[in-house]
């Protein structure tokens, strides 16, 4: 029962050359496993170019929701489409809980994985540019096993961006990193995803407050979406930004109250 009645980001925030990315419309979505209802009548509208953070306790159905939006899982009822009325298939890039780098491919091959899988010509210039941006230039021939956790996540971000998809879905992609690395990667992700519509699942209120334009809590059995909390200012917000600290406290309180 949620619609975020927020205007899309001003056009100036996006390069004029690029089309505005589609938003996401989730309509009356339900997911049931046998007798158990994970959620039903779930409605959510994400406007073009917005960064939404979705929070909730583990097992509440966040990942399932994301997988349904990504087209990786089938809902029991309802549907998901772009705000332009077209299906989202082929317009979504997905980052999972693990970096999911293929261990037999080196960094560059992992970044250009999409082209490999679709038998397209590999855009080396684009890959070079992305590797440069995520700070992995010169490491492109290393195997994932030779990378640190932060570097692996950087490679995963580059792989996501290589796809040039207007919508990016992220399922706790930074949860396995140490606090410092996480902070750096969050900044990187926020900077690189400004042109995309993004939905980030996280269990970390700080992460949500630093990156999200709107924060939404998914809670309960069956799960429902809470009122969105809207934050001003462009992400990544500083960790000691008063607004971040305040919303973080508020979020944590909401989450713990809901959990009781």
């Amino acid at each position, binding site marked *: 029962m949620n619609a975020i009645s927020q205007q899309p980001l001003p056009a100036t925030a996006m390069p004029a050359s690029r089309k505005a990315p589609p938003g996401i419309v989730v309509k009356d979505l339900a997911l049931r496993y046998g007798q158990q209802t994970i959620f039903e009548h779930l409605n959510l509208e994400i406007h073009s170019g917005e960064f939404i953070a979705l929070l909730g306790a583990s097992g509440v159905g966040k990942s399932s929701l994301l997988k349904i939006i990504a087209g990786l899982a089938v809902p029991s009822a309802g549907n998901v489409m772009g705000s332009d009325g077209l299906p989202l*298939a082929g317009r979504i890039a997905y980052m999972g809980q693990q970096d999911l780098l293929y261990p*037999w491919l080196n960094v560059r091959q992992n970044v250009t994985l999409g082209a490999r899988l679709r038998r397209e010509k590999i855009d080396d210039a684009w890959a070079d540019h992305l590797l440069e941006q995520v700070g992995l230039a010169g490491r492109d021939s290393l195997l994932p096993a030779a990378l640190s956790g932060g570097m692996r996540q950087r490679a995963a971000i580059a792989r996501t961006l290589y796809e040039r998809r207007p919508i990016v879905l992220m399922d706790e992609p930074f949860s396995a990193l140490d606090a410092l690395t996480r902070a750096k990667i969050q900044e990187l992700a926020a900077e690189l995803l400004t042109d995309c519509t993004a939905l980030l699942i996280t269990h970390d209120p700080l992460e949500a407050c630093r990156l999200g334009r709107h924060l939404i809590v998914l809670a309960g059995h069956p799960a429902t979406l809470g009122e969105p909390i809207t934050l001003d200012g462009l992400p990544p917000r500083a960790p000691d930004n008063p607004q971040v600290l305040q919303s973080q406290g508020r979020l944590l309180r909401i989450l713990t109250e809901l959990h009781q």
Partner: protein
Amino acid sequence: MNRLHRASRPLIIFAGLLLIWYAVTLTSVPNYLLPTPLTVAKALWTGRVYLSHHFLITLSEIAMGLFFGLLMGMLLALTMMYSPRLQQWLMPVLIISQAIPVFALAPLLVLWLGFGMASKVVMATLIIFFPVTASFFDGLKRTDPGWLELAQTMNADGLAELRHVRLMAALPSFGSGMRVAAAVAPIGAIIGEWVGSSGGLGYVMLNANARVQTEVCFAALFLLALMAIVLVQLVDISVRKLLYWVPDSSNTR
């Protein structure tokens, strides 16, 4: 230096074994039961044409058995992977086929396929395909679902998914299957030759045994062992090359 050291180790072991063998022959063990290393070396040399002829026969049986066993194992695993219905029917058959000792089939195979190489190749194939099928199928099935989902969001079709994700992810298991296959392949060929054949090292050994030419028997055994070791080593090296990304903790000096 370290490399040299490692390479020389098998030679040292071999020399040690030779020495022990020689020491035993110095006791009162009669020569027709245990020939000296020197007698065997002589037998190897004088019988070189005869032995190499039969060596090549056994080698080709093993090579063909490996080829068909691997091929059959891979095809079966892929079939079961992509057709759950066929898998339900094939799996019991596979397990039953392994419950019957393959050696018990050897006389029948020789009866049906003759004394030539065909029966031995089939023996070796039968022995090899199962570990390959089982391990490869296991690897294919256990591909990380996250990798598959990622490929799916990148619009990979079935073929790309198989080639770039499943096959690669199954390679470590397949490698284990290959190693087992290489180790058991000679058994199939030799058993086949023992039951009935007109050539091969198994035939040579049986023949020499019957004539109490123990040194020829030893010579054949030596060649067989050499072949088996080289085979296992070759497979091991190629599996390592194939699995360049898998950390190998056993590879300590």
